């Protein structure tokens, strides 16, 4: 930490500050430790660091000027939206500028006929849907943090949510981006149409975790709001039965708008927290939402109910109206904070696995957790195989932290072993760098590194995140020595 900074760091801080003051107002630069504190971490509070400076530009020109100064001085830049990320992707660099884009929070234009919204990166995910609502449109990807997370952050992480199987990830719902390169050059990727000339740089930028460029404007695709949506909540006596029911639904040719699973511990925690009406005695609960026209939803609700019953559901409840649907979702959407009440801290993992491996992987997680004496609650985007095991621990006990970290690593490696990946939607950031070699060979990591170098040869954009830099032998950090005990932001 920076409580005792080196004289060289202080000199650099003064130099950068003076240069930024040439075009940024005083209140847009934060240099003192106390005011920087809220920016020291993202939603993964285990990793924290204070930056050299926090710069909060209000427009694209100011972002460009900050980038130019940093490029000239070879100072690292870490872009940050709302700081709700879960992989320490927005953790500051101690020798770098934290580029806080949350002031760039304007919705610039909504075109209801073309079904697009042009927005600045600091706009929250939910604000886009709220602004589009008057036209009967919405922005589909809905991460659980949608009330707070920024669309710029969503682009950086290729965020998902509970509706991905049917409506796709961020990459499927973005039409174009205005970017600034590390040198401060403006670049528009994508187009007003559905593709672009040349290479698909838009696909490359989405999910690049702030390592390739800084996003200053985003045009998103809006979808018409479905006529109706209904949710079925079903309890099962075993995880195997619930897992089997998921495959039955998909195999029957139904693509639900959302298909979520919670295990017993997560269900009980959610019930204690919001009392949504889930079956407390179930070993696993499935939430299956279908949407579409009235006729379609009626047909699918009947079919899913039948499939769940055949798969051995011990309870079945269909939402009666919108208020009831929202209540039933409330348990799932508040599952993270609900589980957070069970222990001083929790550590959220994010592997994706083939659906057919659900029961095996959940049982393995239980076994591995028992071995190290920790409890794990499982919340799971079952429709697309994205696991969120929540490892409960106490960060004030150093041994517990190491156990949680080791268990998390094992879960991710297990995900790769069964044919999946280490991160479905939260990103690699700083947190999962150590697991990257379990998913990628050295040659593959070197290829990723070459892509990084093509856009950022000096490696100053969000350095030390996303991909391990092998060639330059840079070291990444394990869990830092200092730990914060405050709770992660709304997930």
């Amino acid at each position, binding site marked *: 930490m920076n409580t005792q900074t080196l004289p060289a760091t202080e000199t650099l801080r003064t130099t950068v500050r003076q240069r930024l003051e040439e075009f940024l107002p005083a209140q847009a630069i934060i240099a003192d430790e106390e005011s920087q504190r809220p920016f020291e971490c993202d939603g993964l509070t285990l990793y924290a660091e204070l930056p050299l400076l926090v710069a909060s530009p209000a427009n694209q020109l100011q972002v460009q000027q900050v980038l130019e100064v940093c490029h000239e001085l070879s100072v690292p830049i870490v872009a940050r939206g709302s700081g709700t990320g879960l992989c320490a992707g927005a953790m500051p660099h101690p020798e770098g500028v934290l580029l806080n884009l949350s002031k760039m929070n304007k919705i610039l234009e909504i075109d209801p006929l073309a079904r697009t919204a042009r927005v600045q990166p600091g706009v929250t995910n939910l604000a886009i849907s709220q602004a589009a609502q008057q036209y*009967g449109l919405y922005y589909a990807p809905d991460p659980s943090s949608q009330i707070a997370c920024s669309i710029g952050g969503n682009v950086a992480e290729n965020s998902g949510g509970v509706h991905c199987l049917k409506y796709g990830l961020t990459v499927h719902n973005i039409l174009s981006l205005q970017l600034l390169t590390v040198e401060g050059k403006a670049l528009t990727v994508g187009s007003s*149409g*559905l593709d672009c000339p040349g*290479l698909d740089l838009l696909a490359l930028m989405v999910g690049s975790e702030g390592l390739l460029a800084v996003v200053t404007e985003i045009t998103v695709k809006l979808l018409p709001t479905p006529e109706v949506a209904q949710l079925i909540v079903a309890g099962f006596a075993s995880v195997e039965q619930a897992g089997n029911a998921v495959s039955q639904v998909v195999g029957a040719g139904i693509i639900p708008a959302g298909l979520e699973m919670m295990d017993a511990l997560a269900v009980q925690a959610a019930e204690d927290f919001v009392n949504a009406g889930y079956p407390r005695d179930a070993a696993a609960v499935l939430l299956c939402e279908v949407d579409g026209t009235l006729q379609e939803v*009626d047909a699918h609700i009947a079919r899913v109910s039948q499939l769940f019953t055949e798969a051995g559901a011990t309870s079945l409840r269909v939402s009666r109206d919108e208020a009831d649907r929202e209540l039933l979702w409330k348990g799932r959407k508040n599952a993270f904070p609900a589980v957070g009440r069970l222990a001083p801290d929790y550590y959220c993992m994010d592997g994706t696995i083939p659906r057919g491996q659900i029961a095996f992987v959940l049982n393995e997680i239980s076994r591995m957790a028992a071995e190290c004496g920790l409890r794990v609650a499982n919340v799971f985007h079952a429709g697309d195989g994205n696991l969120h095991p929540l490892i409960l621990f106490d960060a004030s006990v150093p041994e517990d932290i190491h156990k949680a970290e080791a268990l998390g690593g094992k879960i991710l490696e297990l995900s790769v072993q069964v044919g999946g990946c280490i991160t479905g939607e939260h990103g690699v950031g700083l947190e999962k760098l150590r697991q990257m070699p379990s998913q990628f060979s050295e040659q593959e990591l070197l290829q990723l590194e*070459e892509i990084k170098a*093509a856009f950022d040869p000096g490696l100053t954009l969000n350095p030390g995140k996303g*991909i391990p830099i092998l060639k330059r032998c840079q070291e990444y950090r394990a869990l830092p020595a200092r730990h914060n005990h405050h709770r992660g932001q709304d997930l």
Partner: protein
Amino acid sequence: MTDRNDELVAAVALAVEQNTALAICGGNSKAHMLGRDLDDETVGELHLSTHTGIVDYHPTELVITARAGTPLRDIKHLLAKEGQMLAFEPPDFDGRATLGGTLACNMSGPARPWQGSCRDMVLGVQLINGRAELLNFGGQVMKNVAGYDVSRLQAGALGTLGVLTQVSLKVLPMLERHITLSYEMNATAAIELMNRRSAIAKPLSGACWTNGLLYLRLSGDNSAVTHTARQWGGDEVARGTEFWRSLREFTHPFFTTPEPLWRFSLCPTAPTHQSTKNLFIDWGGAQRWLRGTVDRAALENEAEQVGGHVSLFRGGDRSQEVKHPLSPVHREFHQRLKHAFDPQGIFNPGRLYSWM
């Protein structure tokens, strides 16, 4: 069912060693389309058409993995047996189209605006880069954000970044019912109606205009499709499936003349090109075809005015640039990225742009 990865890697390694360029060929179904023609005399050919076979397919996982030379038609047949499909409606080109070529060209049919593109459905690729290394990116699961999205970057790259050897795609259940409706109207009115109907949640899966007629296709659950068709009126087209297939396969009479064929990719609400005689509007307004020998600069200007782009899709002089010109910054990053994958410029040199 043959795995030729070893031979392909060896062929690339030899090309690297001898510093000779390679033209990557699948089923040759899209030769003289999309990209520029290569100078055949200085380029050797690397054939993928015998590198075939389904590697993995579990219907309940909604994913299929196959070698790049596998004919698309074989994949479609296999999926159909399980009641599944490639939702982006790629053309078969008489059975010659391969999986790898379809991704390299990002070929997507009339359903693209509603059901996604080839690029949208890619989950993972295996490729040989310009260092003769066999690499895997992405995977066989729906969500995977580890590393950069190298898989989707291959869509439309026309093989300039590597030799695709294997592709994993998301597949979807076939839709139960399709109805095609037609309406007599001019292009301007059709663009307006296509967009208005796209903005409400109905099972629309195709919207095109040609020769004074707007065609709308509804696809999905039987009750939803029939109910919407009743609400929307219009004339039901008897051979709707064949009509949309003719668009997908470029066998519709509009596409069978030898004239140069230009492709606009635009904001779907963009005003129509001034002459509609040789115009075909598809993708709910977002893809427009223009036939004939025209002033290229004027077309480029027209596309740029609405934030879109235009390319010479087929015919014309393919020794010149065929894709929309890029800005100097774009060009610089294209060259840097090309170098990151293919430092010696071995793969399909000049296919996408003369300078890369």
